[in-house]
């Protein structure tokens, strides 16, 4: 398994390489199937490349309204998460106090506990308070588990930021807001953006919690789930499935490049 000679860069045994690349193939196999299905039309035995299902999907009102709703929810939830995540990170990164562990645990809890628990808990609370389910309740549930994405990225950046920069800025006459605007924010920018992209992708894809808090609203993942019981509509489903994949892949790759080379890489824990 390990190098027989003492060189660092010996080549891998062939079985290990096979297993590793085999694993990658396994991970991408369903994705490839989705992409191929989106472009292929099977008309009575003959299969050929086509874009007509993209046309058909965009012409569908239910598809478009689901996409718009999901984009809106993800945007608002991400904004809320940015505010709360940054505040928590700013409060916790240099301080040690009683209950700090409890706060970080609480932030992780919504993604560590199975989604069904978060979902049903929020639903039961909303039922007790007689809140009508809809756009706002979806946003509330999504913001709850998006905060940790921002927090993780921003707190890592805060820790690497020399604190005397802030002190110097304040000594030179800048007030807190100016210091934040010109010293802190530029250093946080890429971490914030990476965290925001991940939070956006997480919210855009969320299904497990959303089912409970959406009421009669149909987000894109819920639309897809409903489609599974309509096999005759499969051609449209395939196209939308591929688009969903694309919409989330772009922010993930962007977040990776934004935080590459820093100690924590965005998205390494979900």
């Amino acid at each position, binding site marked *: 398994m390990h190098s027989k000679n003492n060189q660092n860069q010996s080549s891998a045994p062939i079985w290990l390489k096979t297993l590793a690349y085999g*694993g990658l193939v396994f991970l991408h196999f369903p994705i490839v199937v989705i992409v191929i299905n989106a472009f292929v039309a099977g008309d009575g035995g003959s299969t050929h490349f086509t874009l007509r299902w993209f046309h058909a999907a965009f012409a569908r009102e239910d598809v478009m309204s689901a996409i718009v709703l999901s984009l809106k929810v993800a945007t608002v939830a991400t904004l809320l998460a940015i505010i709360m995540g940054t505040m928590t990170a700013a409060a916790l990164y240099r301080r040690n106090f009683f209950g700090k562990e409890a706060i970080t645990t609480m932030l992780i809890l919504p993604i560590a*506990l199975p989604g069904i628990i978060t979902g049903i808990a929020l639903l039961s609370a909303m039922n007790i308070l007689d809140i009508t389910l809809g756009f706002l309740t979806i946003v509330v549930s999504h913001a709850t588990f998006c905060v940790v994405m921002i927090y993780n990225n921003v707190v890592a950046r805060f820790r690497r930021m020399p604190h005397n920069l802030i002190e110097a800025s304040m000594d030179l006459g800048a007030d807190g807001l100016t210091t934040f605007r010109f010293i802190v924010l530029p250093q946080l920018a890429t971490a914030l953006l990476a965290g925001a992209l991940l939070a956006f992708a997480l919210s855009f894809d969320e299904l497990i919690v959303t089912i409970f808090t959406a009421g009669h609203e149909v987000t894109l993942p819920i639309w897809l789930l409903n489609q599974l019981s309509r096999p005759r509509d499969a051609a449209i489903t395939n196209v939308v499935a591929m688009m*969903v994949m694309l919409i989330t892949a772009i922010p993930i790759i962007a977040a990776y490049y934004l935080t590459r080379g820093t100690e924590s890489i965005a998205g*390494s824990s979900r």
Partner: protein
Amino acid sequence: MQSTTITADTSKPFGRKLSNTLYRKSNLFLFLLLTPPLLWFGVVYLGSLFALLWQSFYTFDSFSMAVSNDLTLENYHSLFDATNLDIILRTLSMAIAVTLACACMAFPIAYYMTRYGSRAEKGLFYIAVMLPMWASYIVKTYAWTVILSQQGILYWCINHLGLSNALNHVLQIPAIGGNTLATSNLGRFIVFTYIWLPFMILPIQAALERVPTNLLQASADLGAKPAQTFRRVLLPLVFPGIVAGSIFTFSLTLGDYIIPQLIGPSGLYIGTMVYTMQGSVGNMPLAAAFTVVPITLIFIYLSLAKRAGAFDAL
């Protein structure tokens, strides 16, 4: 001297004074920063969790199908009914099987990318693991329903390779079999393993990254066979990473209610049980009591994991 500072202070604009105060009274600043997120998490999130727990003590009248506020332990009692115990054990054994399978598949991938991957190859592996991990859950599940269906690519391959007899034999094995791949426990197991595999790869990779290569070389130099080095040196060092990954695979499988609905035989899982109790049956108290099962199991698991040092590896 003192008076000049005071006059200078009063002439300063409000923002400056506020900044100075906040800087000096850092506890006040901390408090102001933490209040909004703590309110959100304390009230919205923990409040909801407690509301849920509280409802698990309510009484459900199965004749009138109504929930009353009389407190009872009946819901917890019924968790130990044979059918409900069956559901719990079924889910638990799937979660354990999926966790083991994920660990076995993730290790070679993580090991290869850490030890042998060139810089470019590492980046490729990283993105190649991240993309499926973040790709939409429902899209991935949907893809598997397409793949596993009898008109799907897997059956096509198996038939063309002449393996359909072998498949039928596998599907006749009681615990994992079923009528078709899509309705068998084997199919469900494959999908679960697929969906949570990336969550195992990344923590193992992070743990492997921290193992110094010269330890392995020292072990080899001292005469250990590769298998011995693996078992005595590498595995103990990487174990916290494996446990960290297993937290995800275990917890996510335990609470899932979409995959058991779409793929595999009809028996209920904890997640599907909670979902139907809450939804179509309207028995919120029993649903709430059922959510306590994964919560308890996960907290037991977390405390074991903490002892294994997994939290440092997260």
